[in-house]
């Protein structure tokens, strides 16, 4: 009996030490003040980043041809909508930014500027299309109102499990594995997943994971896994991964307006 209790106790603690932790790091620990998202950040995403375009080059660096939908698990209805794509019409109606909405924004060849707007809000700006996304941490509630190109984004840090009492992460260790940013975006204004009119609806949901990596040559990379679901226009989640390289300065930052034709 005594041995059984000991075994159970040992098992319980062992489990405790290896349980995965998916956390909104923000609590200040037992009895302490709440820690802001900025203070709790396991990695520093701020700074300037440039996209490396060596995937889907022909859909990103130049305009994809009308009807070129390769790779997108679109529904027949989406295909009908895309086949009617008319960039001149989008320009005339002031909708030239439809391909710069949150689900497609990080696919554009561009520079990113990421900074803390306040201790609970991370801001991501792009020079392509001059767009701004806001990632809200904590118990943020989306305001009511019309849907928007960049939608409403709720953010949380995901940090790996660490045993209680474990040493804090080595600040000099590479950023990979220290934790990542998860962003969920809803309330989107309809837009395009690809510049040639592949559509998504206002019911689309965007889920992103932002991971930082340090490469052997010293390059710091930002890897963003992008998952878009849309029950109307996608047969299954549309999954792509974009990567960016950290820059030492704002060199190359070149704000350009949205374009429906280039």
């Amino acid at each position: 009996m005594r041995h059984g209790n000991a075994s159970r106790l040992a098992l319980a603690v062992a489990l405790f030490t290896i349980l995965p932790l998916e956390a909104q790091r923000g609590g200040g620990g037992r009895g302490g003040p709440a820690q802001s998202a900025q203070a709790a950040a396991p990695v520093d995403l701020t700074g300037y980043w440039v996209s490396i375009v060596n995937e889907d080059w022909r859909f990103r660096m130049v305009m994809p041809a009308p009807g070129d939908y390769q790779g997108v698990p679109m529904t027949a209805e989406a295909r009908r909508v895309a086949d009617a794509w008319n960039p001149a019409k989008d320009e005339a109606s002031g909708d030239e930014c439809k391909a710069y909405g949150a689900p497609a924004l990080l696919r554009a060849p561009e520079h990113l500027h990421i900074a803390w707007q306040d201790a609970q809000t991370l801001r991501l700006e792009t020079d392509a299309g001059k767009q701004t996304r806001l990632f809200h941490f904590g118990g943020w509630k989306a305001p009511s109102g019309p849907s928007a190109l960049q939608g409403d984004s709720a953010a949380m840090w995901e940090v790996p499990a660490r045993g209680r009492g474990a040493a804090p992460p080595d600040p000099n260790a590479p950023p990979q594995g220290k934790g990542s940013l998860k962003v969920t975006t809803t309330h989107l204004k309809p837009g395009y997943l690809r510049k040639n009119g592949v559509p998504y609806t206002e019911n689309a949901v965007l889920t992103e994971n932002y991971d930082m990596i340090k490469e052997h040559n010293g390059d710091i990379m930002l890897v963003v896994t992008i998952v878009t679901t849309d029950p109307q226009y996608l047969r299954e989640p549309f999954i792509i991964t974009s990567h960016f390289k950290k820059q030492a300065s704002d060199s190359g930052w070149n704000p350009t307006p949205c374009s429906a034709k280039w």
Partner: protein
Amino acid sequence: MTCARIIFTLSLCTGLPALAQVELSGSWASKNHEDALERGAGPNPVDFAGIPFNESGRAKALSYSQSQISMPERICAFYSQWHMMIGTFGVKIWNEADPVTGKTVAWIVGAWEDRAPMRIWMDGRPSPSKNAPHSQEGFTSGVWDGDVLTATTTHMMTGYLRRNGVMTSDQATMITHFIRHGDMLTLASALEDPIYLTEPYYITRTFVLTTNPMNLGGPPCLIGDEGVEEGRVPHNLPGKNPFLDEMFKLYGIPVEAEMGGAETMYPAYRDKIKDKFVMPTKCQKNCGAPAAGQN
């Protein structure tokens, strides 16, 4: 075991540095929503845009003829571990553990048809000598950075960087980060090659956990006779590649962009080709969204 001993043991446990590893085992289906042509039927000939190669790499690629893989001696020649990043298939991953300690000795990314298995040694064994023989499998060692597994592969034979003749040399090093988020596994890989590249080539792709078992499909790549006459190596002499303007014909992309080079990876390059790009009136080839079940 007394309570005091239990508490002492547990305090040691909880005080140990955390090794925040994650489970990678399972069958992971490939989602080829990006680079669908490259990962599917294969890229168009002379589609080198976004490749940071040097003059040697470009010349090598331009000399390539797709008919080379019809030669028995080359049919299996070009599939190094990089094929995991650019090929069609999913991956099956498992660990091999020490039977006594239970500690993982190696993670295995199973083979599929033409790619050899990747055995990621986790036991700290030294890398082979630089003069050791190279193979398609190469030598891979791994370390955990928190919950990300980083694998470094050397000693590979030459192989495809892109399946249209863009090559890696046998001096290439591949660094792959295995990043798991729930049921998704993102692989972020860098290929460094002092012979053919001026900058690392970065690729990222995502797999999804599936209950459908991935077929391991070994042994990797079977040699077959496709009727190419003996002694003939299909190739293109300098300046004679017949597909130089293929991407212009299909997609209106200027030939200079298709010649690749590091600058073609960066956003600023768009300004350079903006006035030379000719928007096709309609997609002509490899256009459609895949049919249901083909993703």
